[in-house]
């Protein structure tokens, strides 16, 4: 319940945070919302020598770019996403996903950039963002660069972010007119760590046939995995129980499933198949709803 002693400094810009990271060395940690980092510090899993607090920077902008992408400050909090009409319209899976993160206290402080940099494999946002083909803007000692969210996670709590490198912005391509999406999380109780996450984006033609599909499986392995390739047999077919269950079963059979205290490996593999199939059908139904102009409730 007591974190080990550390030095603390509050910064007011990204550049200042990068400078402090260089000065304080690789045992220093950046803190934004702190909803994952602080529990780890309290349990002494994380013992940073210093905390550089970027969370006080008042930059929580959600902007819609001309190409239909959402441009989010890394400091946008889960609660900001939850209540944003723009997010619900263009990236409804983000709205679905943040509602299932922790509880009101966690959503009030947790940030999108923090979640991505933390690298928790059961986290909701990386799974959804990979399905959307999102990327992040970073700032580090060598300047700015762009990284696809799919290239960020390596394994549990490990990312490809370099030393002293920070996520400053997230860009999320929005859904197009013919696309629909669905995110499904399976957990023991609402707010618990996920046992299975599944995110699907499906495009259909006027006859309801699948013309494109993106699919991501999260929480079961060491990182969320883009399994879109294995979902391609759906192209040209109706998204129904038979077609989705065949594709989902094949993906689950090949998936890397790590042991967890919440569920055994075989159970999670079976549930991965169930949730992937449900996400695909949910996305197809969403595509049909969006095309018919029915109000989408997420």
């Amino acid at each position, binding site marked *: *319940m*007591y*974190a*080990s*002693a*550390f*030095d*603390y*400094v*509050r*910064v007011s810009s990204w550049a*200042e945070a990068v400078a*402090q990271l260089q000065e*304080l060395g690789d045992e*220093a940690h950046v803190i934004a919302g*702190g*909803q994952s980092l*602080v*529990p780890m*510090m*309290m*349990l002494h899993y994380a013992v940073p020598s*210093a*905390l*550089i*607090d970027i*969370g*006080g920077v008042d930059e929580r902008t959600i902007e819609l770019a001309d190409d239909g992408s959402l441009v989010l400050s890394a400091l946008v909090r889960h609660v900001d996403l939850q209540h944003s009409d723009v997010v619900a319209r263009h990236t409804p899976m983000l709205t679905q996903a943040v509602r299932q993160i*922790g*509880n*009101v*206290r*966690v959503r*009030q*402080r947790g940030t999108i950039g923090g979640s991505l940099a933390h690298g928790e494999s059961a986290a909701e946002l990386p799974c959804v963002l990979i399905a959307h083909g999102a990327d992040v803007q970073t700032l580090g000692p060598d300047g700015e660069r762009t990284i696809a969210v799919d290239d960020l996670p390596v394994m549990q709590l490990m990312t490809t972010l370099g030393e002293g490198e920070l996520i400053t912005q997230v860009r999320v391509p929005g859904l197009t007119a013919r696309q629909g999406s669905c995110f499904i999380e399976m957990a023991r109780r*609402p*707010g618990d760590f996920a046992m299975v996450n599944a995110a699907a984006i499906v495009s259909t033609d006027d006859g309801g046939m699948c013309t494109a599909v993106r699919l991501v499986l999260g929480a079961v392995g060491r990182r969320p995995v883009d399994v879109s390739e294995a979902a391609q047999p759906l192209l040209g077919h109706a998204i129904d129980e038979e077609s989705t269950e065949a594709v989902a079963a094949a993906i689950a059979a090949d998936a890397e499933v790590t042991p967890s205290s919440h569920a055994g490996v075989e159970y999670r593999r079976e549930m991965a198949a169930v949730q992937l199939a449900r996400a695909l059908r949910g996305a197809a139904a969403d595509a049909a709803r969006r095309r018919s102009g029915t109000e989408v409730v997420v």
Partner: protein
Amino acid sequence: MTATRGHFISVTINGRPTDFGVSANLSLLELLRNDGGCPEVKLGCGEGVCGTCTVLLDGEPVNACLVFAVQADGCDVTTVRGLAADGELNDLQDMFIEHAGSQCGFCTPGMLLTVTWYLERHPDADREELRRAIAGNLCRCTGYTKILDAVEAYRDLRRGDVDGD
């Protein structure tokens, strides 16, 4: 700016500005319970699981165990004592008594603060939404039913559906 262990901070607790000297690793929870003189803020798990230590930080609910005191520099903190002006229980607290929403009382401060914040933003919340709002604030006595009865009664009262006395 230089990173340091020790910090001088100012926190306004239930409307009263107070200065403290703190170590960076002191949680807001420990500050409130000890030097802050607020033992009504309960320590449950100390690692963000139980919601027992909920306070309002600049009006928004947080787990006080997951905020370092130094991060609250310049902020307003409301504890459950801040709800009872001059020691008079407010309507929400009266409803908890009337509906037996508090048994051992350990989760009650967090429940009262979270519900106060939530109903200000969502005055027409239904029982399911209220259930979600109090999620993560663990109660081991009531099974939540009586808490939700109390909260719904308070919602109706503040909406003017029933006459308060």
